[in-house]
């Protein structure tokens, strides 16, 4: 277990690992995204209440799920960078925030588009959408903080502290937004109720969630590889690796 952590911390090993992982992940992720989208768009039956507009669920929910999980991954990388001073964890932190922000953005915009035919408005201050918006702000905060420092090591450590503080706060924020919503809107419209989802819709949804996790891993690895190419462009191992 520890030997893997040590290897992960070594930039040359990680560069090779990233190259191999990207070569595998790229075709798999693209294929899964295409298959999942076709399944969700063309094959799955429409929802009996929402008709065809519900098909947005196959990108909205996976993006939201992975965006939230991504914050925890970022905080874990932050903890590793603070406690064990692993260099690759610093690089991971910088790569994770923009990817998480992009996925949160997808979740927000698709949610808003979905809202138009469902609620009749582009934006509704629903508990889930509001929490998602705050998650987006948390990601933007980490990105802004990492840009503000000239010193990269200090930037990574500052982002690590901020993302850990955010992690402690996220459950409180989600719970408080839930209460806020029920306080102002006593359970009148609820589309995300407990109604069991049919397997004909569940399987494409699960496939898309997996595809989005893969997409998350892929784009983080791509960004980390770019970051390594920039940071170690003077060093011998990278030059040997490239040529």
């Amino acid at each position, binding site marked *: 277990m520890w030997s893997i952590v040590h290897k992960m911390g070594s930039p040359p090993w990680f560069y090779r690992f990233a190259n191999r992982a990207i070569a595998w992940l790229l075709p798999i992720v693209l294929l899964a995204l295409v298959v999942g989208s076709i399944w969700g768009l063309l094959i799955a039956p429409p929802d009996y209440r929402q008709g065809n507009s519900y098909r947005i669920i196959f990108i909205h929910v996976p993006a939201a799920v992975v965006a939230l999980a991504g914050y925890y991954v970022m905080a874990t990388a932050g903890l590793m960078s603070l406690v064990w001073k692993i260099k690759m964890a610093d690089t991971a932190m910088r790569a994770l925030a923009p990817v998480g922000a992009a996925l949160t953005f997808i979740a927000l915009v698709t949610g808003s588009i979905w809202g138009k035919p469902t609620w009749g408005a582009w934006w509704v201050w629903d508990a889930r959408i509001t929490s998602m918006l*705050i998650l987006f702000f948390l990601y933007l*905060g980490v990105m802004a*903080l990492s840009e503000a420092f000239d010193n990269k090591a*200090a930037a990574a*450590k500052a982002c690590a*502290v901020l993302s850990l503080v955010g992690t402690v706060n996220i459950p*409180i924020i989600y719970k408080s*937004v839930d209460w806020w919503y029920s306080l102002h809107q006593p359970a009148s419209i609820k589309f995300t109720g407990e109604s069991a989802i049919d397997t004909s819709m569940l399987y494409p949804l699960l496939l898309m969630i997996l595809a989005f996790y893969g997409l998350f891993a892929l784009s983080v690895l791509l960004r980390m590889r770019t970051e390594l190419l920039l940071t170690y462009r003077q060093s011998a191992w990278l030059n040997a690796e490239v040529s």
Partner: protein
Amino acid sequence: MLPELGTFLRFQAQRHLQAALRRPGDIVGPLIFFLMVVTLFPLGLGPDPAVLAALSPGILWVVALLSSLVVSGRLFQSDYEDGTLEQLALSPHPLALSAMVEVFCHWLLSGMSLALVSPVFAGLLNMPTQAMPVLMSSLALGTLCLSLIGAVAASLTVALRRGGVLLSLLSIPLTVPVLIFGTAAVREAALGYDPTSWLALLGALAAGGCVLAPFAIAAGLRISLEA
């Protein structure tokens, strides 16, 4: 010869309070800011007393949050600039505690003073009288949470030249629960319900913050000193 921890912290508190009291403008300024922004709402929303009364918990809490954000940018600033912070970081006494002393002094002079004068502003917005004690206590507890959040953000941005906007960007998402619990408490009280559970939640946030925030603040200050 370094004094014992208790004496050391008392000296720190004395230093912060004296420095702040020497410049009373820094304490009165945010209150005037509060008054001015509260004045803007009737001008923007219209003078209807019923509308203002209904919106007053939200207005007062949002303005309190903003003015707390504005002042928390000053936290640690002078200590960072004159090198005191470096001394505190090097001293054998924990930096987390000496930083917390500054946060508490800051809260006493900004948050508590705001909570004490808040009934005046609530009166301007026609808030029902029975909600005033709840407004004061919710602001007292809530501004402590806001000061702690602001202190975490300030500890990370104190070394940066353009820290002001960044500080708000980092703090605002974290202040959401405080705002929700605070306005809920005042709203419930204004409507004649029991606000105790919301005040208890605010108290829990403040207590949890007092336990966890010092670690984040100390870590943030050390990073800022190294950068």
